[in-house]
Protein backbone atom coordinates (compact mmCIF):
# COMPACT_ATOMS: atom_id res chain seq x y z
CA UNK A 1 0.00 0.00 0.00
CA UNK A 2 2.71 2.40 1.11
CA UNK A 3 4.92 1.15 -1.68
CA UNK A 4 2.16 1.79 -4.20
CA UNK A 5 1.80 5.35 -3.00
CA UNK A 6 5.53 5.91 -3.37
CA UNK A 7 5.42 4.37 -6.82
CA UNK A 8 2.49 6.54 -7.81
CA UNK A 9 4.23 9.64 -6.55
CA UNK A 10 7.35 8.69 -8.43
CA UNK A 11 5.43 8.19 -11.69
CA UNK A 12 3.68 11.49 -11.13
CA UNK A 13 6.89 13.45 -10.75
CA UNK A 14 8.45 11.55 -13.60
CA UNK A 15 5.54 12.57 -15.83
CA UNK A 16 5.88 16.17 -14.69
CA UNK A 17 9.56 16.19 -15.55
CA UNK A 18 8.79 14.67 -18.95
CA UNK A 19 6.17 17.31 -19.62
CA UNK A 20 8.57 20.04 -18.61
CA UNK A 21 11.24 18.59 -20.88
CA UNK A 22 8.85 18.46 -23.81
CA UNK A 23 7.77 22.04 -23.18
CA UNK A 24 11.37 23.14 -23.06
CA UNK A 25 12.17 21.22 -26.26
CA UNK A 26 9.32 23.02 -27.99
CA UNK A 27 10.21 26.49 -26.74
CA UNK A 28 13.84 25.97 -27.52
CA UNK A 29 12.89 25.58 -31.18
CA UNK A 30 10.67 28.62 -31.19
CA UNK A 31 12.74 30.66 -33.72
CA UNK A 32 12.25 27.84 -36.24
CA UNK A 33 8.55 28.69 -36.53
CA UNK A 34 9.35 31.35 -39.07
CA UNK A 35 11.24 28.96 -41.31
CA UNK A 36 8.13 26.84 -41.88
CA UNK A 37 5.43 29.31 -41.18
CA UNK A 38 3.09 27.58 -43.63
CA UNK A 39 2.84 24.66 -41.19
CA UNK A 40 1.73 27.00 -38.42
CA UNK A 41 -0.75 28.72 -40.72
CA UNK A 42 -2.24 25.36 -41.57
CA UNK A 43 -2.64 24.58 -37.87
CA UNK A 44 -4.14 28.00 -37.23
CA UNK A 45 -6.75 27.13 -39.79
CA UNK A 46 -7.49 23.76 -38.23
CA UNK A 47 -7.20 24.69 -34.55
CA UNK A 48 -8.39 28.28 -34.68
CA UNK A 49 -10.91 28.78 -37.42
CA UNK A 50 -12.31 25.29 -36.95
CA UNK A 51 -13.18 26.10 -33.36
CA UNK A 52 -15.08 29.32 -34.05
CA UNK A 53 -18.63 27.89 -34.20
CA UNK A 54 -18.03 26.02 -30.97
CA UNK A 55 -16.65 29.13 -29.31
CA UNK A 56 -19.53 31.34 -30.44
CA UNK A 57 -22.09 29.02 -28.93
CA UNK A 58 -20.05 28.64 -25.75
CA UNK A 59 -19.55 32.41 -25.45
CA UNK A 60 -23.25 33.12 -25.85
CA UNK A 61 -24.18 30.73 -23.08
CA UNK A 62 -21.42 31.93 -20.79
CA UNK A 63 -22.74 35.51 -21.18
CA UNK A 64 -26.35 34.53 -20.61
CA UNK A 65 -25.61 32.41 -17.59
CA UNK A 66 -23.33 35.00 -16.03
CA UNK A 67 -25.98 37.69 -16.06
CA UNK A 68 -28.67 35.34 -14.79
CA UNK A 69 -26.44 34.24 -11.96
CA UNK A 70 -25.30 37.78 -11.10
CA UNK A 71 -28.87 39.01 -11.13
CA UNK A 72 -29.93 36.15 -8.88
CA UNK A 73 -27.21 36.87 -6.36
CA UNK A 74 -27.55 40.67 -6.35
CA UNK A 75 -31.31 41.10 -6.40
CA UNK A 76 -32.38 43.39 -3.62
CA UNK A 77 -28.92 43.61 -2.11
CA UNK A 78 -26.92 45.76 -4.46
CA UNK A 79 -28.04 48.57 -6.77
CA UNK A 80 -28.62 47.24 -10.30
CA UNK A 81 -25.99 49.69 -11.50
CA UNK A 82 -23.50 47.08 -10.39
CA UNK A 83 -25.00 44.31 -12.49
CA UNK A 84 -22.95 45.35 -15.50
CA UNK A 85 -19.89 45.54 -13.30
CA UNK A 86 -20.33 42.02 -11.96
CA UNK A 87 -20.98 40.51 -15.37
CA UNK A 88 -18.10 42.32 -16.96
CA UNK A 89 -15.55 41.33 -14.31
CA UNK A 90 -16.62 37.72 -14.12
CA UNK A 91 -16.80 37.37 -17.88
CA UNK A 92 -13.46 38.84 -18.85
CA UNK A 93 -11.27 37.72 -15.97
CA UNK A 94 -12.48 34.19 -15.40
CA UNK A 95 -15.48 32.73 -17.06
CA UNK A 96 -14.86 33.39 -20.73
CA UNK A 97 -11.13 32.57 -20.68
CA UNK A 98 -11.40 29.42 -18.59
CA UNK A 99 -14.62 27.92 -19.88
CA UNK A 100 -13.75 28.68 -23.48
CA UNK A 101 -10.35 27.08 -22.98
CA UNK A 102 -12.00 23.99 -21.48
CA UNK A 103 -14.34 23.64 -24.40
CA UNK A 104 -11.63 24.26 -26.98
CA UNK A 105 -9.38 21.83 -25.14
CA UNK A 106 -11.96 19.09 -25.48
CA UNK A 107 -11.75 19.56 -29.20
CA UNK A 108 -8.05 20.37 -29.71
CA UNK A 109 -6.07 18.40 -27.14
CA UNK A 110 -7.91 15.23 -28.08
CA UNK A 111 -7.39 15.83 -31.79
CA UNK A 112 -3.69 16.47 -31.26
CA UNK A 113 -3.30 13.40 -29.06
CA UNK A 114 -5.09 11.25 -31.64
CA UNK A 115 -3.11 12.62 -34.58
CA UNK A 116 0.30 12.34 -32.95
CA UNK A 117 -0.67 9.02 -31.38
CA UNK A 118 -1.53 7.58 -34.75
CA UNK A 119 1.69 8.97 -36.19
CA UNK A 120 3.53 7.23 -33.39
CA UNK A 121 1.80 3.88 -33.84
CA UNK A 122 2.02 3.85 -37.63
CA UNK A 123 5.74 4.64 -37.37
CA UNK A 124 5.42 8.00 -39.11
CA UNK A 125 7.42 9.63 -36.33
CA UNK A 126 10.07 6.94 -36.71
CA UNK A 127 10.08 7.62 -40.44
CA UNK A 128 10.72 11.29 -39.74
CA UNK A 129 13.58 10.34 -37.49
CA UNK A 130 15.04 8.16 -40.25
CA UNK A 131 14.88 11.05 -42.69
CA UNK A 132 16.61 13.25 -40.07
CA UNK A 133 13.49 15.38 -39.78
CA UNK A 134 12.79 16.73 -36.33
CA UNK A 135 9.24 15.80 -35.33
CA UNK A 136 9.11 18.40 -32.58
CA UNK A 137 9.89 21.11 -35.08
CA UNK A 138 7.60 19.94 -37.85
CA UNK A 139 4.73 18.36 -35.98
CA UNK A 140 4.49 19.66 -32.43
CA UNK A 141 5.82 23.22 -32.63
CA UNK A 142 3.28 24.41 -35.26
CA UNK A 143 0.43 23.07 -33.16
CA UNK A 144 1.69 24.69 -29.98
CA UNK A 145 2.26 27.99 -31.76
CA UNK A 146 -1.13 27.89 -33.44
CA UNK A 147 -2.86 27.15 -30.15
CA UNK A 148 -0.99 29.92 -28.35
CA UNK A 149 -1.90 32.40 -31.08
CA UNK A 150 -5.49 31.33 -31.59
CA UNK A 151 -6.75 30.79 -28.05
CA UNK A 152 -6.71 34.56 -27.28
CA UNK A 153 -8.47 35.23 -30.57
CA UNK A 154 -11.10 32.65 -29.77
CA UNK A 155 -11.57 34.10 -26.31
CA UNK A 156 -12.07 37.57 -27.76
CA UNK A 157 -14.84 36.14 -29.93
CA UNK A 158 -16.29 34.37 -26.96
CA UNK A 159 -16.27 37.55 -24.84
CA UNK A 160 -17.84 39.61 -27.60
CA UNK A 161 -20.65 37.16 -28.05
CA UNK A 162 -20.92 36.83 -24.29
CA UNK A 163 -21.41 40.57 -23.90
CA UNK A 164 -24.01 40.68 -26.64
CA UNK A 165 -25.86 37.74 -25.17
CA UNK A 166 -25.84 39.30 -21.72
CA UNK A 167 -27.23 42.53 -23.11
CA UNK A 168 -29.97 40.59 -24.81
CA UNK A 169 -30.85 38.81 -21.57
CA UNK A 170 -30.76 42.08 -19.63
CA UNK A 171 -33.15 43.56 -22.15
CA UNK A 172 -35.50 40.63 -22.41
CA UNK A 173 -35.64 38.99 -19.03
CA UNK A 174 -34.21 41.18 -16.31
CA UNK A 175 -35.73 44.10 -14.55
CA UNK A 176 -33.06 46.65 -15.40
CA UNK A 177 -33.08 49.47 -17.89
CA UNK A 178 -30.80 49.17 -20.88
CA UNK A 179 -29.17 52.42 -19.86
CA UNK A 180 -28.32 51.24 -16.36
CA UNK A 181 -26.91 47.97 -17.56
CA UNK A 182 -24.79 49.42 -20.35
CA UNK A 183 -23.52 52.13 -18.08
CA UNK A 184 -22.53 49.53 -15.54
CA UNK A 185 -20.64 47.62 -18.22
CA UNK A 186 -18.91 50.76 -19.43
CA UNK A 187 -18.22 52.52 -16.18
CA UNK A 188 -16.35 49.77 -14.48
CA UNK A 189 -14.59 48.44 -17.52
CA UNK A 190 -10.95 48.07 -16.64
CA UNK A 191 -8.74 47.30 -19.65
CA UNK A 192 -5.86 45.51 -17.82
CA UNK A 193 -8.34 42.88 -16.58
CA UNK A 194 -9.33 42.15 -20.10
CA UNK A 195 -5.73 42.06 -21.35
CA UNK A 196 -4.65 39.64 -18.64
CA UNK A 197 -7.75 37.55 -19.19
CA UNK A 198 -6.99 37.29 -22.87
CA UNK A 199 -3.25 36.84 -22.63
CA UNK A 200 -3.45 34.07 -20.07
CA UNK A 201 -5.31 32.00 -22.61
CA UNK A 202 -2.09 31.91 -24.61
CA UNK A 203 -0.68 29.87 -21.75
CA UNK A 204 -3.80 27.72 -21.83
CA UNK A 205 -3.23 27.21 -25.55
CA UNK A 206 0.28 25.96 -24.90
CA UNK A 207 -1.06 23.67 -22.15
CA UNK A 208 -3.72 22.26 -24.45
CA UNK A 209 -1.31 21.52 -27.30
CA UNK A 210 1.47 20.15 -25.09
CA UNK A 211 -0.91 17.83 -23.21
CA UNK A 212 -2.14 16.44 -26.49
CA UNK A 213 1.36 16.05 -27.86
CA UNK A 214 2.68 14.46 -24.69
CA UNK A 215 0.10 11.68 -24.59
CA UNK A 216 0.23 11.26 -28.35
CA UNK A 217 3.95 10.63 -28.17
CA UNK A 218 3.47 8.14 -25.36
CA UNK A 219 0.70 6.34 -27.22
CA UNK A 220 0.82 2.56 -27.42
CA UNK A 221 -0.31 0.56 -30.43
CA UNK A 222 -3.97 0.00 -31.13
CA UNK A 223 -7.32 1.75 -30.87
CA UNK A 224 -7.25 1.39 -27.10
CA UNK A 225 -3.96 3.25 -27.00
CA UNK A 226 -5.36 6.18 -28.95
CA UNK A 227 -8.47 6.25 -26.77
CA UNK A 228 -6.37 6.35 -23.62
CA UNK A 229 -4.14 9.04 -25.09
CA UNK A 230 -7.06 11.34 -25.90
CA UNK A 231 -8.70 10.83 -22.51
CA UNK A 232 -5.49 11.53 -20.62
CA UNK A 233 -4.77 14.56 -22.77
CA UNK A 234 -8.08 16.25 -22.08
CA UNK A 235 -7.89 15.41 -18.37
CA UNK A 236 -4.39 16.77 -18.01
CA UNK A 237 -5.09 19.94 -19.93
CA UNK A 238 -8.23 20.68 -17.88
CA UNK A 239 -6.29 20.21 -14.67
CA UNK A 240 -3.34 22.30 -15.78
CA UNK A 241 -5.61 25.08 -17.03
CA UNK A 242 -7.07 25.39 -13.53
CA UNK A 243 -3.66 25.25 -11.91
CA UNK A 244 -2.22 27.95 -14.13
CA UNK A 245 -5.35 30.05 -13.89
CA UNK A 246 -4.84 30.04 -10.15
CA UNK A 247 -1.19 30.99 -10.51
CA UNK A 248 -2.09 33.88 -12.80
CA UNK A 249 -4.75 35.02 -10.33
CA UNK A 250 -2.21 34.92 -7.50
CA UNK A 251 0.20 37.06 -9.44
CA UNK A 252 -2.08 39.63 -11.06
CA UNK A 253 -5.26 40.01 -9.07
Amino acid sequence: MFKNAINGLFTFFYAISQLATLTWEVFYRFPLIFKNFDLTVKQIRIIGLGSIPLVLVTGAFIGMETIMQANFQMQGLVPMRYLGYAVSKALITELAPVITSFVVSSRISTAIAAEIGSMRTTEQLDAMYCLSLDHIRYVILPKVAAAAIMLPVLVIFSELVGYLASIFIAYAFINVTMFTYLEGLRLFFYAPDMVIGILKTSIFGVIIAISGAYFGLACVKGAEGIGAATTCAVMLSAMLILVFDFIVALIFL
Partner: protein
Amino acid sequence: MEKTEQRKPILKIEHLVKNFGTKRVLKNVNFEVFAGEIVCVIGQSGHGKSVLMKNIMGLMHPDGGQIMFKGDVIASPTTPTSKYDDVRQKFGLLFQGAALFDSMTIEDNIAFALRERTDFSETEIHQKVVKSISMVGLNNVEHLMPADLSGGMRSRVGLARAVVMEPEIMLYDEPTSALDPIMTDMVNDLILDLRQRLNMTSIIITHDISSAYKIADKIVMIYEGNVVFNGTPGEIRSSRDPYVQKFIRGNRKTYYAFDDDDGKEQNVDVGELQHARDTRKFGGISSLKVVPKAVPLEKIR
Protein backbone atom coordinates in the same frame (compact mmCIF):
# COMPACT_ATOMS: atom_id res chain seq x y z
CA MET B 1 44.81 -0.83 -52.36
CA GLU B 2 41.26 -1.27 -53.42
CA LYS B 3 41.24 -4.76 -52.06
CA THR B 4 42.07 -3.61 -48.52
CA GLU B 5 39.39 -0.95 -48.83
CA GLN B 6 36.87 -3.55 -49.76
CA ARG B 7 37.85 -5.89 -46.99
CA LYS B 8 36.78 -3.42 -44.35
CA PRO B 9 33.10 -3.88 -43.65
CA ILE B 10 30.96 -0.76 -43.91
CA LEU B 11 28.66 -2.16 -41.25
CA LYS B 12 29.57 -4.66 -38.60
CA ILE B 13 27.16 -6.11 -36.09
CA GLU B 14 28.68 -7.83 -33.09
CA HIS B 15 26.90 -9.87 -30.43
CA LEU B 16 23.80 -7.70 -30.69
CA VAL B 17 21.27 -8.22 -27.88
CA LYS B 18 17.84 -6.62 -27.52
CA ASN B 19 15.34 -7.27 -24.74
CA PHE B 20 11.75 -6.21 -24.35
CA GLY B 21 11.06 -6.54 -20.64
CA THR B 22 12.05 -10.06 -19.82
CA LYS B 23 11.78 -11.24 -23.39
CA ARG B 24 15.07 -11.48 -25.25
CA VAL B 25 14.24 -10.84 -28.88
CA LEU B 26 17.76 -10.59 -30.28
CA LYS B 27 20.12 -12.99 -28.55
CA ASN B 28 23.38 -12.87 -30.39
CA VAL B 29 23.41 -11.39 -33.86
CA ASN B 30 26.69 -11.14 -35.73
CA PHE B 31 27.29 -10.30 -39.34
CA GLU B 32 29.20 -7.97 -41.57
CA VAL B 33 28.16 -5.98 -44.59
CA PHE B 34 30.63 -4.67 -47.16
CA ALA B 35 30.20 -1.55 -49.24
CA GLY B 36 28.02 -2.14 -52.27
CA GLU B 37 26.86 -5.49 -51.01
CA ILE B 38 23.27 -6.67 -51.10
CA VAL B 39 22.42 -8.70 -48.02
CA CYS B 40 19.09 -10.40 -47.57
CA VAL B 41 17.89 -11.15 -44.06
CA ILE B 42 15.39 -13.97 -43.86
CA GLY B 43 13.66 -15.65 -40.97
CA GLN B 44 10.31 -16.54 -39.52
CA SER B 45 7.76 -13.95 -38.56
CA GLY B 46 8.33 -12.51 -35.09
CA HIS B 47 11.92 -13.66 -34.79
CA GLY B 48 13.35 -10.16 -34.57
CA LYS B 49 14.14 -9.03 -38.11
CA SER B 50 12.41 -5.66 -37.85
CA VAL B 51 13.90 -5.17 -34.40
CA LEU B 52 17.34 -5.77 -35.90
CA MET B 53 16.70 -3.10 -38.54
CA LYS B 54 15.52 -0.60 -35.97
CA ASN B 55 18.64 -1.17 -33.92
CA ILE B 56 20.81 -0.54 -36.96
CA MET B 57 18.82 2.57 -37.79
CA GLY B 58 19.04 3.95 -34.24
CA LEU B 59 15.31 3.75 -33.57
CA MET B 60 15.99 1.28 -30.79
CA HIS B 61 18.85 1.10 -28.38
CA PRO B 62 20.66 -2.24 -28.06
CA ASP B 63 20.96 -3.95 -24.68
CA GLY B 64 24.21 -5.65 -25.56
CA GLY B 65 26.85 -5.89 -28.25
CA GLN B 66 27.58 -3.17 -30.73
CA ILE B 67 27.05 -1.91 -34.26
CA MET B 68 29.95 -0.38 -36.13
CA PHE B 69 29.77 1.87 -39.16
CA LYS B 70 33.09 2.26 -40.99
CA GLY B 71 34.94 1.29 -37.84
CA ASP B 72 33.09 3.64 -35.46
CA VAL B 73 30.76 2.28 -32.83
CA ILE B 74 27.42 3.90 -33.58
CA ALA B 75 25.27 1.84 -31.26
CA SER B 76 25.98 -0.01 -28.04
CA PRO B 77 24.42 0.04 -24.58
CA THR B 78 26.86 2.76 -23.55
CA THR B 79 26.79 4.88 -26.71
CA PRO B 80 24.41 7.85 -26.43
CA THR B 81 21.91 7.98 -29.27
CA SER B 82 22.77 11.59 -30.07
CA LYS B 83 26.20 10.49 -31.22
CA TYR B 84 24.39 8.80 -34.01
CA ASP B 85 22.61 11.80 -35.50
CA ASP B 86 24.92 12.70 -38.37
CA VAL B 87 25.61 9.09 -39.27
CA ARG B 88 21.91 8.51 -39.59
CA GLN B 89 21.73 10.83 -42.56
CA LYS B 90 23.71 8.24 -44.50
CA PHE B 91 21.10 5.57 -43.76
CA GLY B 92 17.70 5.07 -45.30
CA LEU B 93 14.92 2.79 -44.14
CA LEU B 94 11.85 1.50 -45.91
CA PHE B 95 9.32 0.62 -43.22
CA GLN B 96 7.32 -2.57 -43.30
CA GLY B 97 4.09 -0.57 -43.47
CA ALA B 98 5.62 2.24 -45.58
CA ALA B 99 4.86 4.80 -42.78
CA LEU B 100 3.87 7.55 -45.19
CA PHE B 101 2.93 10.90 -43.67
CA ASP B 102 -0.87 10.75 -43.71
CA SER B 103 -1.44 14.47 -43.77
CA MET B 104 0.69 15.15 -46.85
CA THR B 105 0.29 14.44 -50.53
CA ILE B 106 2.57 11.87 -52.14
CA GLU B 107 4.66 14.65 -53.64
CA ASP B 108 5.12 16.33 -50.24
CA ASN B 109 5.94 13.00 -48.65
CA ILE B 110 8.84 12.51 -51.02
CA ALA B 111 9.85 16.16 -51.19
CA PHE B 112 9.73 16.85 -47.45
CA ALA B 113 13.27 15.76 -46.62
CA LEU B 114 14.61 17.22 -49.89
CA ARG B 115 13.12 20.60 -49.05
CA GLU B 116 14.36 20.63 -45.50
CA ARG B 117 17.75 19.03 -45.84
CA THR B 118 19.05 19.96 -49.29
CA ASP B 119 19.51 23.17 -51.25
CA PHE B 120 17.72 22.09 -54.42
CA SER B 121 15.31 24.56 -55.94
CA GLU B 122 11.60 23.82 -56.00
CA THR B 123 11.71 22.88 -59.70
CA GLU B 124 14.64 20.53 -59.20
CA ILE B 125 12.83 18.94 -56.28
CA HIS B 126 9.71 18.49 -58.37
CA GLN B 127 11.74 16.81 -61.11
CA LYS B 128 13.37 14.50 -58.59
CA VAL B 129 9.99 13.59 -57.15
CA VAL B 130 8.50 12.77 -60.54
CA LYS B 131 11.56 10.77 -61.47
CA SER B 132 11.58 8.78 -58.27
CA ILE B 133 7.88 8.06 -58.58
CA SER B 134 8.29 6.69 -62.10
CA MET B 135 11.35 4.77 -60.93
CA VAL B 136 9.12 2.73 -58.64
CA GLY B 137 6.60 2.14 -61.41
CA LEU B 138 3.97 4.72 -60.51
CA ASN B 139 2.72 7.78 -62.32
CA ASN B 140 0.27 10.59 -61.74
CA VAL B 141 0.05 9.95 -58.04
CA GLU B 142 1.80 13.16 -56.91
CA HIS B 143 -1.38 14.88 -55.82
CA LEU B 144 -3.05 11.93 -54.16
CA MET B 145 -3.05 11.35 -50.42
CA PRO B 146 -1.52 8.18 -48.94
CA ALA B 147 -4.99 6.94 -48.00
CA ASP B 148 -5.89 6.88 -51.72
CA LEU B 149 -3.22 4.30 -52.56
CA SER B 150 -3.18 0.52 -52.32
CA GLY B 151 -0.78 -1.26 -49.95
CA GLY B 152 1.67 -2.09 -52.72
CA MET B 153 1.60 1.45 -54.06
CA ARG B 154 2.21 2.87 -50.59
CA SER B 155 5.16 0.62 -50.07
CA ARG B 156 6.65 1.80 -53.37
CA VAL B 157 6.12 5.45 -52.45
CA GLY B 158 7.90 4.68 -49.17
CA LEU B 159 10.73 3.26 -51.23
CA ALA B 160 10.85 6.35 -53.44
CA ARG B 161 10.87 8.58 -50.38
CA ALA B 162 13.84 6.77 -48.87
CA VAL B 163 16.00 6.39 -51.98
CA VAL B 164 15.46 9.93 -53.23
CA MET B 165 17.85 11.03 -50.46
CA GLU B 166 20.47 8.66 -51.90
CA PRO B 167 21.62 7.11 -48.63
CA GLU B 168 24.83 5.12 -48.46
CA ILE B 169 23.12 2.21 -46.78
CA MET B 170 19.54 1.39 -47.52
CA LEU B 171 17.55 -0.89 -45.23
CA TYR B 172 14.40 -2.46 -46.63
CA ASP B 173 11.82 -4.09 -44.38
CA GLU B 174 9.93 -6.43 -46.68
CA PRO B 175 9.91 -4.25 -49.80
CA THR B 176 8.14 -6.79 -51.94
CA SER B 177 5.73 -8.57 -49.63
CA ALA B 178 2.76 -6.50 -50.85
CA LEU B 179 3.73 -6.61 -54.52
CA ASP B 180 2.74 -8.70 -57.49
CA PRO B 181 5.47 -10.66 -59.34
CA ILE B 182 5.97 -7.97 -61.99
CA MET B 183 6.41 -5.21 -59.44
CA THR B 184 8.61 -7.47 -57.33
CA ASP B 185 10.94 -7.86 -60.29
CA MET B 186 10.91 -4.15 -60.83
CA VAL B 187 11.86 -3.41 -57.23
CA ASN B 188 14.61 -6.03 -57.41
CA ASP B 189 15.96 -4.37 -60.54
CA LEU B 190 15.80 -1.01 -58.80
CA ILE B 191 17.88 -2.30 -55.91
CA LEU B 192 20.47 -3.68 -58.32
CA ASP B 193 20.41 -0.44 -60.29
CA LEU B 194 21.03 1.64 -57.17
CA ARG B 195 24.08 -0.43 -56.44
CA GLN B 196 25.27 -0.04 -60.02
CA ARG B 197 24.84 3.73 -60.08
CA LEU B 198 25.57 4.79 -56.51
CA ASN B 199 27.33 1.77 -55.05
CA MET B 200 24.48 1.72 -52.56
CA THR B 201 24.68 -0.96 -49.91
CA SER B 202 21.40 -2.74 -49.25
CA ILE B 203 20.13 -4.82 -46.38
CA ILE B 204 16.81 -6.39 -47.24
CA ILE B 205 14.40 -8.25 -45.01
CA THR B 206 12.38 -10.54 -47.17
CA HIS B 207 10.21 -13.63 -47.11
CA ASP B 208 10.60 -13.97 -50.85
CA ILE B 209 13.33 -16.54 -51.28
CA SER B 210 13.41 -16.40 -55.06
CA SER B 211 14.03 -12.63 -54.94
CA ALA B 212 16.79 -13.23 -52.44
CA TYR B 213 18.41 -15.74 -54.77
CA LYS B 214 18.25 -13.24 -57.60
CA ILE B 215 19.75 -10.20 -55.95
CA ALA B 216 21.57 -11.19 -52.77
CA ASP B 217 25.32 -11.44 -52.45
CA LYS B 218 24.79 -12.85 -49.02
CA ILE B 219 21.86 -14.29 -47.13
CA VAL B 220 21.62 -14.02 -43.35
CA MET B 221 19.07 -16.17 -41.62
CA ILE B 222 17.70 -15.21 -38.21
CA TYR B 223 16.13 -17.82 -35.99
CA GLU B 224 14.87 -16.88 -32.52
CA GLY B 225 17.23 -13.94 -32.31
CA ASN B 226 20.34 -15.76 -33.49
CA VAL B 227 22.02 -15.85 -36.87
CA VAL B 228 21.76 -19.47 -37.91
CA PHE B 229 23.04 -19.10 -41.42
CA ASN B 230 25.26 -16.62 -43.19
CA GLY B 231 26.41 -17.32 -46.72
CA THR B 232 25.84 -16.92 -50.43
CA PRO B 233 22.64 -18.01 -52.16
CA GLY B 234 24.55 -20.97 -53.55
CA GLU B 235 25.63 -22.01 -50.08
CA ILE B 236 22.14 -21.73 -48.63
CA ARG B 237 20.74 -23.87 -51.42
CA SER B 238 23.16 -26.63 -50.70
CA SER B 239 23.02 -26.25 -46.92
CA ARG B 240 22.30 -29.51 -45.15
CA ASP B 241 20.78 -27.84 -42.09
CA PRO B 242 17.25 -29.24 -41.89
CA TYR B 243 15.76 -26.00 -40.57
CA VAL B 244 17.36 -23.95 -43.34
CA GLN B 245 16.10 -26.40 -45.91
CA LYS B 246 12.61 -26.37 -44.47
CA PHE B 247 12.60 -22.59 -44.49
CA ILE B 248 13.81 -22.04 -48.01
CA ARG B 249 11.65 -24.76 -49.45
CA GLY B 250 8.54 -23.96 -47.46
CA ASN B 251 5.88 -26.61 -47.63
CA ARG B 252 6.82 -27.88 -51.02
CA LYS B 253 7.73 -31.55 -50.94
CA THR B 254 11.43 -31.90 -51.31
CA TYR B 255 13.22 -34.85 -52.72
CA TYR B 256 16.73 -35.95 -52.33
CA ALA B 257 18.58 -37.41 -55.19
CA PHE B 258 21.75 -39.22 -54.42
CA ASP B 259 24.27 -41.57 -55.72
CA ASP B 260 24.26 -45.01 -54.20
CA ASP B 261 27.79 -45.91 -55.13
CA ASP B 262 29.93 -43.31 -53.48
CA GLY B 263 27.35 -41.57 -51.25
CA LYS B 264 27.65 -38.27 -53.07
CA GLU B 265 24.33 -36.52 -52.81
CA GLN B 266 22.48 -33.54 -54.14
CA ASN B 267 19.24 -31.85 -53.26
CA VAL B 268 16.76 -31.63 -56.04
CA ASP B 269 13.44 -29.95 -55.70
CA VAL B 270 10.29 -31.06 -57.40
CA GLY B 271 10.51 -28.66 -60.26
CA GLU B 272 14.01 -29.69 -61.15
CA LEU B 273 13.43 -33.37 -60.74
CA GLN B 274 12.46 -34.30 -64.27
CA HIS B 275 15.22 -32.12 -65.57
CA ALA B 276 17.74 -33.85 -63.34
CA ARG B 277 16.65 -37.24 -64.57
CA ASP B 278 16.88 -36.23 -68.17
CA THR B 279 20.18 -34.50 -68.30
CA ARG B 280 21.94 -36.02 -65.39
CA LYS B 281 23.10 -32.55 -64.67
CA PHE B 282 24.25 -33.56 -61.26
CA GLY B 283 27.49 -34.92 -62.53
CA GLY B 284 28.71 -38.05 -60.89
CA ILE B 285 25.32 -39.39 -60.08
CA SER B 286 25.13 -42.62 -61.90
CA SER B 287 22.00 -44.12 -60.53
CA LEU B 288 19.55 -41.43 -59.62
CA LYS B 289 17.21 -42.48 -56.90
CA VAL B 290 14.51 -40.22 -55.60
CA VAL B 291 13.25 -40.28 -52.05
CA PRO B 292 10.77 -38.02 -50.30
CA LYS B 293 12.38 -35.69 -47.82
CA ALA B 294 10.29 -36.95 -44.97
CA VAL B 295 12.39 -40.10 -44.92
CA PRO B 296 15.65 -39.42 -43.10
CA LEU B 297 18.59 -39.70 -45.40
CA GLU B 298 20.59 -41.90 -43.08
CA LYS B 299 17.92 -44.59 -43.07
CA ILE B 300 17.90 -45.00 -46.80
CA ARG B 301 21.58 -45.13 -47.03
